[in-house]
């Protein structure tokens, strides 16, 4: 949902709905028993209720609904709206009979089976969230998991999370750590290729500077403004790798070719800024400006991509054009023997 701008009607509508309703993000906590009927046990039901109370302490949780609430409601109705009876009975026979009354008293049996299987071996606790943000969902999941590990469920019962918001955070975690790994490994591979290409460890090292500085600058900025590391950012960092190394190869390769011919450092520099330098700066400007229209999109990821592409191009262009020449100047003796 945060992929829409704050002012976008869809996001406004989502906020309004979540403020007034129990929450539009449905998460589930699945209780699984080993045998049929294990969901009728008062011990399990009281445990489920304790989990519900714990989760409700998180402000993102709009409401929780489970077979526990159905049982309490039936009891309340049977005892002519006596709210003191709105508790889970301590006798399994009564639980079974109350649920049977529910099945007898009309309505769609599927209403009940949203929360428990017809065999009563599994139950599904609805955890409605007001916010689908990964951080918010993670906080709810962590709170639940902490409670579950500190207060283990009754013998033979396993409890698992399910639902789209939960899948989202799992997916994001997988994706982000996957992206981080692939980014790190491509960084190493690119470095080795550079050393091989220039047949020089030093040149290989310097050629990595533009992309390293650019990626670090992006991450620093993202961290500074507090933007979560999500998919668009992950993709962008990989792109930076490719774009920035391009500039560096271009610059270094040309410089070496020219220098071989001129054997004069100042002359080489003049020549490279005339030709390759101009080409790189134009490349930077064209791509950077080309992505600017994305800033006017309603979808936040598009804005992110547009803004970051602009920044990536400018930063890596500047590093290539300013830092690389200064460094080569400084180490010219050892670089060009």
């Amino acid at each position, binding site marked *: 949902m945060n992929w829409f701008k704050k002012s976008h009607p869809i996001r406004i509508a989502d906020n309004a709905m979540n403020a007034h309703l129990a929450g539009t993000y449905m998460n589930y906590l699945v209780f699984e028993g080993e045998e049929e*009927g294990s969901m*009728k046990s008062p011990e399990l039901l009281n445990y489920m209720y304790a989990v519900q109370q714990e989760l409700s302490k998180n402000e993102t949780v709009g409401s929780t609904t489970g077979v526990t609430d159905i049982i309490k409601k039936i009891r309340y109705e*049977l005892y002519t709206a006596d709210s003191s009876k709105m508790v889970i009975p301590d*006798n*399994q*026979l*009564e639980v*079974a*009979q*109350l649920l*049977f*009354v529910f*099945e*007898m*008293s*009309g*309505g*769609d*049996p*599927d209403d009940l089976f949203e929360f428990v299987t*017809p*065999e009563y071996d599994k139950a599904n606790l609805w955890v409605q969230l007001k916010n689908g943000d990964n951080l918010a969902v993670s906080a709810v999941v962590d709170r639940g998991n902490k409670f579950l590990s500190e207060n283990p469920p009754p013998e033979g019962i396993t409890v698992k999370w399910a639902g789209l918001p939960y899948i989202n955070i799992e997916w994001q975690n997988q994706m982000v750590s996957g992206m981080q790994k692939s980014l790190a490994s491509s960084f190493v591979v690119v470095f080795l290729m550079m050393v091989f290409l220039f047949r020089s460890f030093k040149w290989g090292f310097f050629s990595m500077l533009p992309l390293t500085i650019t990626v670090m600058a992006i991450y620093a900025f993202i961290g500074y403004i507090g933007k979560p590391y999500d998919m668009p950012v992950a993709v962008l960092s990989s792109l930076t790798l490719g774009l920035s190394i391009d500039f560096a190869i271009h610059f270094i390769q040309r410089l070496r070719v020219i220098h071989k011919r001129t054997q004069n450092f100042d002359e080489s520099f003049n020549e490279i800024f005339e030709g390759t330098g101009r080409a790189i700066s134009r490349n930077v400007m064209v791509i950077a400006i080309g992505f600017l229209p994305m800033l006017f999109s309603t979808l936040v990821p598009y804005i992110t991509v547009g803004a970051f592409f602009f920044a990536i191009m400018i930063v890596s262009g500047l590093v290539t054009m300013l830092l690389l020449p200064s460094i080569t100047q400084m180490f010219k003796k050892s670089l060009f023997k």
Partner: protein
Amino acid sequence: MKKLTTTLFALLLILGISSSNAAAADATELMKQSHLAYFYAGDDGLTDVNMTIVSKKGKERVREFTMIRLDIEEGGNQKYYTYFKKPSDVSRITFLVHKTSEGNDQRWIYIPSIDLVKPISADDKNSSFVGSDFSYEDISGRHWIEDNHTLKADETLDGKAVYVIESVPKEAYKGFARKLSYIDKETMLPLKEEYFSKKDKLVKKFTADKIEVVDGITTIIVRTMHNIKKGGHTTVTFDKISYNVGVKDDIFTERYLKNPPRKYIKK
């Protein structure tokens, strides 16, 4: 007002009852006979019932109960007493229905674990009976006057001559928009029923799977309701059936809900 009625009556006489009206009347009469054969067999009836609910995924749930029926009036009011035996955690639950031909049925349930008799809502007759694919109305019958009936065809079904009758509810009804009944001409029992939704899709199908003569009354021993819409089906098997046993009216009361009549109900 009286004058108007007389005039209308006279008009009707002059015009005569049209042939289509005659057919409708016939279909209604056939439906009534079928209803009496199916839901009002004998003056009373006693049977053990096994109800096996099979889900779409093939999982089975079994309910066993004894059912006592008393007809107060042939084709009219009836009383049903149900004593549950299985599943074991609901055994001794009893259930009472006073069915009226006007449609304002009354239902009570006795919950032994808390020793409580409670009236329960009887508004939705299309709702599921004990979580099965049969609705309350499939068990105790939807009164034939609530639908318009048309005789669609005379056919043969599994070697038996049947009437195919189409029933359309007079007032919009959740249970079905149209129903086709295949009624055995000889016994007047429904051999098959097909329920269609508002969009005219087949949603439910009833089949009479086994028919026997008990105490001189032809009875459907095994019947199945196929839930086409959701998948799955429920099969109902009658056992130890007896008719005209002289059931007394007083067992259909709250007192007997708590203390089941041992004469008819063996644990």
